[in-house]
């Protein structure tokens, strides 16, 4: 029994964090709201060069041939940095399916989703997991753009996508639960960042002659956020382990992770805004970039209630 990551896994995470600190500062996230494709540019390329985009692609296929356990901490870091990219769709869902050097290195991008597909306009391939059509399509004939509350998430509904090949049920299921795991990890990373910047703010901001972080009401709000993160992260890591080891309960473990991570990140966003007050309520402050990512990812690929219902089924209806 050992519930901890290896030094290699932690070193990979640290390298990705350092890369994102450099290539994906808040200015890059903000720019993605207004640039052409809503993406980071340099950060994506650098992640590709590092191999982070081909973590789950077989070595024979040009990837690193690693497991969900190696990918989960990287997803958490992309959440912490609010990286504006289809990281989960590409790394955890699409690339292992389409494979190939280009996707393993990020030279080409694959996205995923159903009915709405993020970044479909700049992707080279689209994996659709909708229950009616499990298809891996080339980029679509016609794209209808939809506005996400997160301006960097370019959403599209798709028409006349040219199917490249059908996916097997097991491909679909593996891809789906890997995707949910990825978003759960990103939510944990987003929550960490929201807590960190709020701690700095309430320590510096003074009202009534004292730092507002010295007032018990704010202390307890932030303590609750810390508790929520502390007890959701292990569920996410366990879910990664279960997927990596084909645990029969893996899907339930992923649902537990998404429900807990979505609730933790939602709480972190709520308290972060309340602690920042009017200063954080302006779109000139970076806070909203992280909050809106949380709102989007908490709702996508099944919200907390939906995943809790999956857990209830596995717990109560098992015979």
């Amino acid at each position: 029994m050992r519930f901890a990551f290896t030094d290699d896994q932690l070193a990979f995470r640290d390298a990705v964090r350092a890369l994102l600190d450099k290539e994906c500062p808040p200015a890059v996230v903000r720019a993605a709201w207004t640039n052409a494709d809503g993406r980071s540019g340099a950060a994506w390329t650098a992640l590709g060069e590092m191999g982070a985009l081909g973590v789950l692609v077989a070595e024979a296929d040009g990837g690193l041939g690693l497991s969900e356990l190696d990918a989960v901490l990287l997803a958490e870091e992309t959440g912490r940095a609010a990286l504006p990219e289809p990281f989960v769709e590409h790394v955890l869902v699409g690339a292992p399916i389409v494979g190939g050097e280009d996707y393993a290195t990020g030279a080409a991008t694959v996205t995923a989703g159903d009915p709405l597909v993020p970044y479909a306009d700049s992707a080279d391939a689209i994996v659709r997991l909708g229950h009616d059509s499990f298809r891996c399509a080339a980029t679509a004939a016609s794209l209808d753009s939809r506005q996400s509350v997160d301006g960097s998430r370019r959403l599209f509904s798709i028409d006349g996508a040219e199917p490249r090949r059908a996916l097997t049920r097991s491909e679909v299921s593996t891809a789906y639960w890997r995707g949910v795991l990825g978003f759960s990890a990103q939510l944990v990373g987003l929550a960490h960042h929201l807590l960190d910047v709020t701690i700095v703010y309430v320590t510096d901001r003074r009202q009534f002659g004292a730092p507002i972080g010295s007032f018990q009401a704010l202390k307890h709000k932030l303590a609750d956020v810390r508790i929520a993160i502390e007890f959701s992260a292990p569920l996410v890591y366990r879910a990664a382990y279960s997927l990596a080891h084909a645990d029969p309960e893996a899907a339930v473990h992923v649902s537990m992770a998404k429900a807990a991570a979505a609730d933790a990140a939602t709480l972190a966003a709520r308290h972060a805004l309340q602690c920042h007050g009017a200063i954080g309520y302006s779109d000139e402050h970076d806070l909203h970039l992280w909050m809106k990512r949380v709102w989007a990812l908490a709702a996508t690929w099944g919200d907390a209630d939906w995943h809790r219902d999956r857990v209830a089924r596995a717990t109560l209806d098992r015979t």
Partner: protein
Amino acid sequence: MDLSWSDSEAAFRAEARDWLAANVPDPPLASGDTREGFAAHLEWEHRLFDARWAVVSWPEAYGGRAASLWEWLIFEEEYYRAGAPQRVTQNGIFLLAPTLFEFGTPAQQERFLSRMASGEETWCQGWSEPDAGSDLAAIASRAVHDAANGGWRLSGQKTWTTRGAFCTHLFGLFRSDPDAERHRGLTYLLVPLDSPGITVRGFGRLDGDEGFAEVFFDNVFVPDDLVLGEVDEGWKVAMATTGSERGLTLRSPGRFLATTNRLVELARTRSADDPLVRQRIAQARIDAEAYQLHTLATVTRITDGEPPGAESSLTKVFWSELDVRLHETALGILGAEAELDDSAWMKGWQFALSGPIYAGTNEIQRNVIAERVLGLPRK
């Protein structure tokens, strides 16, 4: 106890409902917190004023109907039920006006009230400063008396001024006695925003609309007759305004009853049989009607001549957190679609999140409840 409406009140409701049915713009106007939308909303305010619906509770002399508080509640219910436009004149007619009626000179009332009601002049609130948010008494913007010219010289900065970039006037607090501490030595001034030395910079709120503004004052001259109330007594005058802001006028029950009804419609079309949603909908209706009934009790007390007190803090916490829950429930029903910005609920959610922050954060309000309503020790 009598929870029925009189014939005249019923007639008033019918008249309001008919007029709104015939006049509420469809499709809805663009957000009043954008430059274009603001202009469209001013047009709407002119129509309201011409039909004497702009300020129903005011004296007829200023364009009102001298309506009772009951009739005002009825009008608000009908206004929100009809899905009528936001009131971009709200900071004037709901926040400043009660103070003008109470503290203004006859000349000031003549000068400002009708133009405020018609939307010819629009008012923003100049209270918060970069270092005076929750701690309003930390206001540092200066007002120095200029005896030679019979007025005041303003300098400093206000911020988070709602619709400040679109308004013609600002009412605000300025420190007139630099030696006085905190709540003392402040003066309440009425400031035309076209006065020389004023710079206004609009900026975006959470939802991206340019609903906020910074207002910079560089030796701005304001004549003596634009002081509201006594010099150095601005805090007392301002508190009368926060009283009304937190209490009745800004958030009438009709607003949350209408949101609840929209929520019920949403649930019926989407997930009327999801028991989680059903419980939340039931709680939404319970809370919205509790707020309505609480308001009826308050209006009854006011009608009996009792003033509303620190209870306004109870009200502010309740409606602001109710509004958040109502929108949370709607977003939960929308599921993955909640993320889509074109849903009115996502925009409403972002606005609802400002409720626990402005007009005194809910942390401040809970302190007030604990200390002034419950009598708990300050230290």
